[in-house]
């Protein structure tokens, strides 16, 4: 019963400005920190590929079921994001420890030969993110004070 309301000059100006800005919409990445690795570069994939992340993909439970290599990939290439945080948590659940001095993850390979208040000594597996692989280090001194 109210009928139409003619748009006045100001409304038409608003629409014109809206229409022009419609052609350069903000992109979600505009509201996020620059991603040095893996920026959002959506590229068209086959339509029958899954277009959405699987349900629950943002839960710790899901991350815990990822392989260790995948977790390292996420940790080092998606830094500063929730994905990195969840990967770190999942790695800890797999007994990996982040050592801030080397900025690497270490996992005990065997019972340490020597344990004191400050450190433990033994053989460790560590993940070398520069050469991108797991390596064994014998006689390594694991200092607690650098434990993240």
């Amino acid at each position, binding site marked *: *019963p*109210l*009928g*139409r*309301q003619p*748009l*006045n000059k100001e*409304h038409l*100006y*608003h*629409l*014109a*400005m*809206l*229409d*022009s*800005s*419609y052609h*350069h*919409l*903000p*992109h979600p*990445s*505009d*509201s996020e*920190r*620059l991603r040095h690795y893996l*920026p*959002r*570069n959506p590229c068209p994939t086959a339509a029958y590929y899954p277009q959405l992340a699987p349900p629950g993909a943002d839960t710790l439970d899901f991350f815990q079921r990822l392989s260790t290599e995948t977790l390292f990939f996420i940790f080092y290439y998606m830094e500063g994001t929730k994905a990195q945080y969840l990967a770190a948590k999942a790695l800890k659940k797999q007994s990996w420890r982040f050592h801030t001095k080397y900025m690497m993850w270490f996992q005990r390979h065997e019972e340490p030969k020597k344990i004191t208040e400050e450190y433990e000594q033994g053989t460790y597996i560590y993940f070398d993110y520069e050469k991108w692989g797991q390596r064994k280090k014998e006689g390594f001194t694991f200092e607690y004070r650098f434990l993240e």
Partner: protein
Amino acid sequence: FDDPPGLHEKTEFLLREWVNMYHSPAAGRDSTKAFSMFVGQMHQQGILKTDDLITRFFRLSTEMCVDLCYRALNEQTHSPTLIRAKCFHTLDAFVRLISLLVKHSGDSTNSVTKINLLNKVLGIVAGVLLQDHEVRNTEFQQLPYHRIFIMLFIELNAPEQVLDGINFQILTAFCNTFHILRPRKAPGFAYAWLELISHRVFIGRMLAITPQQRGWGMYAQLLIDLIKFLSPFLRNADLTKAAQLLYKGTLRVLLVLLHDFPEFLCDYHYLFCDVIPPNCIQMRNLILSAFPRNMRLPDPFTPNLKVDMLSDITHPPRIVTNFTNMIQPASFKKDLDSYLKSRAPVTFLSDLRSNLQVSNEPGTRYSIPLINALVLYVGTQAITYIHSKGQTPSMSTIAHSSHMDIFQNLAVDLDTEGRYLFLNAIANQLRYPNSHTHYFSCTLLYLFAEANTEAIQEQITRVLLERLIVNRPHPWGLLITFIELIKNPSFNFWNHEFVHCAPEIHKLFESVARSCT
């Protein structure tokens, strides 16, 4: 006034210096090392000497950043990602400088200087934006401004002690700025604006983290700004693609609010209904469908649901709006109160319609906020009156009172347009189980039962029906009212001519009835 000679060059030099320092590995964590060196340079260059110079420095810096972006955006050869990386390279550095200056201005416990500086910078960026918007018109680009605002907001909401202490003032500063840049002021910035106020960090701070819901009023104001911008286009229900996208974006944001902060929509529903065009059914239904999370809604389709036995209907909903003040002029309010109390002056009812009429233009004859306020005020007075007699609202207790006099007068005396707005004002109160929903549900049914012409009954039915045939959600109070109307034989609903006026209308009623019963 003109910038002092050399200031432009000096600013350009400093800005370039800072961007390089920000990106160098030696910048230190959060650029703190770079910052302490750079502040030294600012001092050397005399930038920090006076407030005016600081202001000019920020304005010139902002303009330089913006110009850089326009140049990059006009380079057609690069991909959007590369263009953005190029713009953000400078913008992010500029934002970092602003946030560090804000955090370190004045001594650590003095929040006034920090917030003053923040307001100054936000004001400068807003000023540059508005001028750019006006000058470049349809060539205006939102990117640099959007990036500055969002990254500055994220930086100033990092979990740091000095920021925690002034967080509410930071939020207030940003809300003020976003209000100044509201879509009706800068329509070319509308998409970025909605992106800003719906960002998860912004919503989180305004509606979830800030204690005592202190951010709710400011956030409501921003939503009202948005709806007021959309309103003329929604009003005619033929949206251009651009307006349709903004409307859809708005629905997404409202859905998030309905899911995460229903109490917020409940508290501010009155203000939102005041600015949503009456014929914008779905968005209004979405807001009216919100109910407090601790409330369990009985299934409205339960056979023989005894609404008046529900304990919730004795409690009024929380309304943060002072709708009483919206009843103007004061003389009208005085007469209203006097009539409610003693049904005098007798001329009140006959004058009522002219008090509500503001023009002779069809479609805008009446003041919608005044009708809304009048209806809610009379209704709440009625509820108080009924409770004062130790009764609860029902079809019998709401009758034969000065309150119902007013409602019946409006139903009879208003023309179709006025009556539509009046019935909408009532239907806007049909929400979750509370004393308003119950009272106004009874009132609407009472007006239907007591109507002396079928036109009134038809229009009541239309108002309910148009709210039911749109996609969900549908407010609980709307459903139980319509179900009562079609099921309760005392209303004789199915025997009215307008139910059978056309086969498809009859079919429509039957399908809605089927879905409701």
